């Protein structure tokens, strides 16, 4: 490993990115518009679907309890009220019912209009149900959404900014030119990773700080912790892009593959909506994506004030994914078209 060579390539790639005004503008403006726009749209009447966690009372159908027969509501199973009640406090779910004892108990957030409406629907079916209201400071949707949008922007930038660019370099023959110098593959790969990491962190911090000026995000935890998980998340997603870019010469093929990765990631990793209560398969799929772990950790820090010690699992998963993807990407890497 030769640091001088690595720094030279890192510098060249960073200059290219910064001078490409259109790409830079896109990376900066898109997330600002999305946070502001989505925050505005969804701060009003709320999300269109009701989500209710259910403790006890199997199976989840009308025969068990008439309330479970309402089709407009998505019911899902919760194991334990201790785990689920904070979700009501944080507005992650609209209601929690405990059917394991009689009469049924339910939790709603007094500050949630949806919760109050659900309580009326429940009492219409089961007048004896006992209210267990929680108040918990309300989390605006925008507080929940902002990490999602920033994470999504990072994901696109990491995957395409590395994956697509390296494929373009290979197709144009620039990689072949570099290969004719003493530059080693690992030096080139690390330079691409570090360049993109530095730039995406700068952009993300700038966008976060900018949006924070007028949206005043909720921040229960430490900024340092948030930064750390952001670094880990970005590295794992860049490394993922490196795998895609390791061999191909066709930008169309690489673009297709990157879309195939990024779109499911955007949908199931919980960028816009919580995947709480989604089918098992979707949750299982979500766990495969680094973005899910990044968003879980970031939201836990920002909304619940989690410490790093509470986040061992997502941190370990992100580190593991980074190492594994990087190793695979380096092993598969080719300077020239096959």
């Amino acid at each position, binding site marked *: 490993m030769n640091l*001088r*060579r690595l*720094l*030279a*390539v890192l*510098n*060249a*790639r960073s*200059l*290219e990115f910064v*001078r*490409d005004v259109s790409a830079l503008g896109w990376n900066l403006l898109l997330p600002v518009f999305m946070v502001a726009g989505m925050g505005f749209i969804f701060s009003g009447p709320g999300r269109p679907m009701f989500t209710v966690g259910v403790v006890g009372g199997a199976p989840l159908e009308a025969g068990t309890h008439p309330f479970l027969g309402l089709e407009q509501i998505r019911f899902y199973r919760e194991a334990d009220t201790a785990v689920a009640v904070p979700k009501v406090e944080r507005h992650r779910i609209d209601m929690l019912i405990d059917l394991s004892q009689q009469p049924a108990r339910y939790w709603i957030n007094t500050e949630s209009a949806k919760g109050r409406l659900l309580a009326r629907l429940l009492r219409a079916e089961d007048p004896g149900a006992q209210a267990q209201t929680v108040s918990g400071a309300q989390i605006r949707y925008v507080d929940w959404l902002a990490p999602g949008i920033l994470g999504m922007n990072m994901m696109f930038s990491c995957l395409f900014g590395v994956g697509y660019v390296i494929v373009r*370099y290979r197709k*144009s*023959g*620039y990689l*072949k*030119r*570099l*290969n*004719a*110098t*003493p*530059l080693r593959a690992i030096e080139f790969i690390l330079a691409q990773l570090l360049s993109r990491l530095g730039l995406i962190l700068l952009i993300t911090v700038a966008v976060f700080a900018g949006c924070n000026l007028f949206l005043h995000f909720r921040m229960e935890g430490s900024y340092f912790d948030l930064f750390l998980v952001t670094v880990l998340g970005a590295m794992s997603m860049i490394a993922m892009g490196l795998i895609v870019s390791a061999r191909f010469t066709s930008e169309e093929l690489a673009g297709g593959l990157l879309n195939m990765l990024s779109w499911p990631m955007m949908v199931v990793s919980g960028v816009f909506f919580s995947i709480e209560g989604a089918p098992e398969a979707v949750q299982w799929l979500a766990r495969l994506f680094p973005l899910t772990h990044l968003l879980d950790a970031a939201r836990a820090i920002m909304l619940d004030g989690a410490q790093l010690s509470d986040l061992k699992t997502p941190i370990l998963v992100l580190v593991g994914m980074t190492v594994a993807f990087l190793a695979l990407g380096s092993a598969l890497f080719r300077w*020239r078209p096959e």
Partner: protein
Amino acid sequence: MATILSVHGLRKQYPKVNAVDGISFEVAEGVCFGLLGPNGAGKSTTVEMLEGILRPSAGEIRFRGQRIGARYRERIGIQFQTTALQDFLTVRENLRLFRALYARGADIDELIAVCRLGEFLDRDTRKLSGGQRQRLLLAIALVNDPELLFLDEPTTGLDPQARRNFWELVRSVKARGKTIVLTTHYMEEAYLLCDDIAIMDHGRIIARGSPQRLLAEHFDDSVLELPLAALQDRPVDLQVLRKGEMAEIMTADVNGVVRQLLAADVPLDRLRIRPRTLEDLFLQLTGSELRA
């Protein structure tokens, strides 16, 4: 003269074709060695193996007596036929980038002067003309002050003026004691620049020597060129080769042929007598036009 590069039994086999079929040759230090051949002859494959970026199926390549290895790249310079550079970087930044990739190197200012990059040093490389771009690529190939320089069709696509300027540049590089391996489609270029050439076809070397010696070995005649129209209705007992609108007569006895043409009352206003060229040799040896 010392040998800088020696190649022995070099072979490159692809599933259905022997691209390079066991060739051996040596390149002397300080010469310009030309590798010529029609498309598909195996010269690009050969050059890429010599450059150390393509692994041979068999055979060996020695640089100053040592098998080429990891350190070889520090000592050679390569100008590929087409090289993309990173977008949004200036000429100067590109030079610095490539200079940083080598342990030792040429003085950047001197390189700028030699390759005449001064007027467009701070221009984005995407805005260079063809000739300027080739000069930059040559400078990049020279950035590590290499002992051996590979030029792969460096003037393809340049206008005649830019091509001549580039030849001047190559001569001045050679005058600095560099050994050059050149591939080209242009026989004139090979004739003017190369001290030593090898003509390849079907993966083998079919002729080898200095351009002058090769021409002397294969030809003892000259070529008379006339417009075809001049011979119309004037039967002469000569072997005439049609080449477009022109007729070519190969002969070792120019006086005799001219006498015959005069006797047949052929107008000689547009007669041209030229010596045989590498182009003729190439055609004779490979049976194909260079670009065929």
